[in-house]
């Protein structure tokens, strides 16, 4: 029984870290991994999702719907930004860093000025359960399921829908796709919107468990970039296994030596992976070692 409860606890912690990495990285994997836009405003899409979903939930909308609404609003904001600003910079990757960083600062400070230094949360739903003397949060299991469901949903979108095939074609060889009659500018816009919506979904899902402040996005950004960089360009061959490996490293070290060791372990793992596999896990799996 002791062994089983220990095993459960380790699986739970790894699953929890996995969910956090997958959910915070998915949106970035689409925007940075696929489209190549280094999006430093990723955290602010998460912030947008969290604020919208919390406000909706406090106004009486059921939580699942509020979270979806948060994702949709973040997606629309993403599409708007893509139309207005990002699309002019696709051939200038370094400039996108500066621009998205600027957007991030404007969003954070604007939120502080307009909405104040924090907004009230909704509280975490569902309560707790106990295994072997330890209490666990039920909502954290929901987050793990949501991470898996998000991956499954993305897989369906990119392999089983017309939009997914056109998006992959557009990103791989844009001019051929355009020559074949694909409206590539619309596809770019929708793909960027999808990435922003995924970030918003992450914000909505984590909002009930966190402090809601204008700087909350920064809590996700490092982990998101780390996961995407380790993963490489492909969400399924890269981001998902990267999140699994990093979650294992982080949960193991945190339970052994505390949060600081977990953080250090995460960053050391990244350095090691980039040194050995410059194109991330995707490159390794596709045998594209440089």
């Amino acid at each position, binding site marked *: 029984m002791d062994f089983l409860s220990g095993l459960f606890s380790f699986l739970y912690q790894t699953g*929890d870290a996995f969910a956090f990495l997958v959910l915070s990285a998915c949106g970035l994997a689409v925007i940075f991994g696929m489209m190549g836009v280094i999006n430093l405003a990723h955290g602010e899409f998460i912030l947008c999702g969290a604020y919208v979903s919390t406000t909706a939930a406090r106004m009486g909308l059921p939580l699942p719907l509020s979270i979806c609404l948060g994702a949709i609003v973040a997606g629309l904001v993403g599409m708007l930004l893509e139309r207005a600003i990002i699309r002019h910079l696709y051939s200038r990757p370094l400039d996108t860093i500066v621009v998205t960083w600027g957007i991030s600062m404007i969003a954070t400070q604007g939120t502080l000025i307009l909405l104040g230094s924090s907004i*009230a949360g909704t509280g*975490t739903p569902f309560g707790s359960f106990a295994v072997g003397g330890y209490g666990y949060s039920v909502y954290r299991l929901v987050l793990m399921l949501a991470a898996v469901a998000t991956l499954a949903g993305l897989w369906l979108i990119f392999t089983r829908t017309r939009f997914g095939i056109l998006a992959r074609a557009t990103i791989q060889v844009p001019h051929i796709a355009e020559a074949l009659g694909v409206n590539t500018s619309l596809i770019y816009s929708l793909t960027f919107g999808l990435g922003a919506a995924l970030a918003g979904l992450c914000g909505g899902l984590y909002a009930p*468990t966190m*402090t809601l402040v204008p700087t909350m996005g920064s809590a996700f950004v490092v982990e998101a970039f780390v996961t995407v960089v380790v993963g490489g360009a492909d969400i399924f061959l890269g981001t998902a296994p990267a999140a699994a490996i990093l979650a294992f490293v982080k949960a193991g070290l945190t339970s052994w030596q505390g949060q600081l060791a977990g953080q250090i372990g995460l960053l050391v793992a990244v350095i090691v992976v980039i040194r050995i596999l410059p194109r991330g896990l995707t490159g390794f799996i596709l045998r594209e070692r440089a």
Partner: protein
Amino acid sequence: MQIRASGALAALATLFALSTAAFAQDGEPIKLGVLEDQSGDFALATIGKVHGIELATEEINAEGGIAGRPIQLVTYDTQSDNRRYQEFMRRVLQRDKVDVVFAGFSSASREAYRPIVDQFKGLAFYNNQYEGGVCDANMIVTGAVPEQQFSTLIPYMMEKFGKNVYTIAADYNFGQISAEWVRDIVKENGGTMAGEEFIPLGVSQFSQTIQNIQKAKPDFLVTLLVGTAQASYYEQAASANVDLPMASSVNVGQGYEHKRFTPPSLANMYVTTNWIEEVDNPASKAFVEKWHKKFPDEPYINQEAENSYIAVYLYKQMVERAGSTDHDAIRKVIAEGDVCMDAPEGHVCIDPKSQHMSHTIYLAKVNEDHSISFPKVWDDIKPYWLGDVGCDLTKENPEAQYTPSDNPKAASK
């Protein structure tokens, strides 16, 4: 004849110089630099400090200023960034030439700017509770220190809940030194540490920490978490049903977590604070009312806001008694040992040896519905520790920070 003429000229010149000096004294404003985090991770707890300074300044200027001179605020937003503190501290001291600076929330920020204050012989007020130990004549500290917050709180908790203690603390100088204080007090009172964990600033996910705590089965938990990211702990611990009594020197009185989180995630939290807006006495009620008149949208008035407000009045008193803004003259006034005032929290005085402030310490308990009750109040707790370990700023100025394991008394043993 010639000698007499030059003598008269010199006398005239002196007279002229004196009169312009007096003139400058009359009209010229006293410049007060304000370096506080109005954006970034700490903004939530510190915007109120700026408001406190503004409120006191407005009141003092309406009554004719400090010895006839109005206060002029020179405010910069330090953005919760230690480098900004260094940059702006140089700017207010060298370019703006302020008479006094009110600066800083986190201890890391304070230690970042303190060498600059020392270098330019500035005078800085640190209006924040902290881990204690700063023995520096260029600093006046109005915030509460461990002998005021921990020497009261930890023995109370040990008596009430048990002697097995677990600490989680932010991983920088504040958390590390405060945890050392907790460890020492627990040991002195015959208790044991069930565990200790230091959390890097900015961490927001606590699943594993929560489990480590549950595994150690402490009688109560000391939470020294700082910043809005770390505050996510309470929500996550409540949803995992940790259900332990908590003790803290920074929560509630600083980040008003009981107002921001859904009950009962902070229930059974005990905090020692020198003031919060729930304190129930006439002076305090009037203060809150006055505050809301000027800042109707203030979400919460915390202990640091009150510290900042009374610091302006203390500075006024020191300058008026010293007859100038000169630091040596001000220190002579402090050395008299009776720079005191009646604040919303009660009577407070500046201690000459450490230039720290005595406080009324309120034990605030967060109830199930997140209302606050005060099971205990300690009157007039003096900041005695620095004096005990050999800091005496009336005699010498080491410009150092001491800790329980690193101080002149420990070194001489």
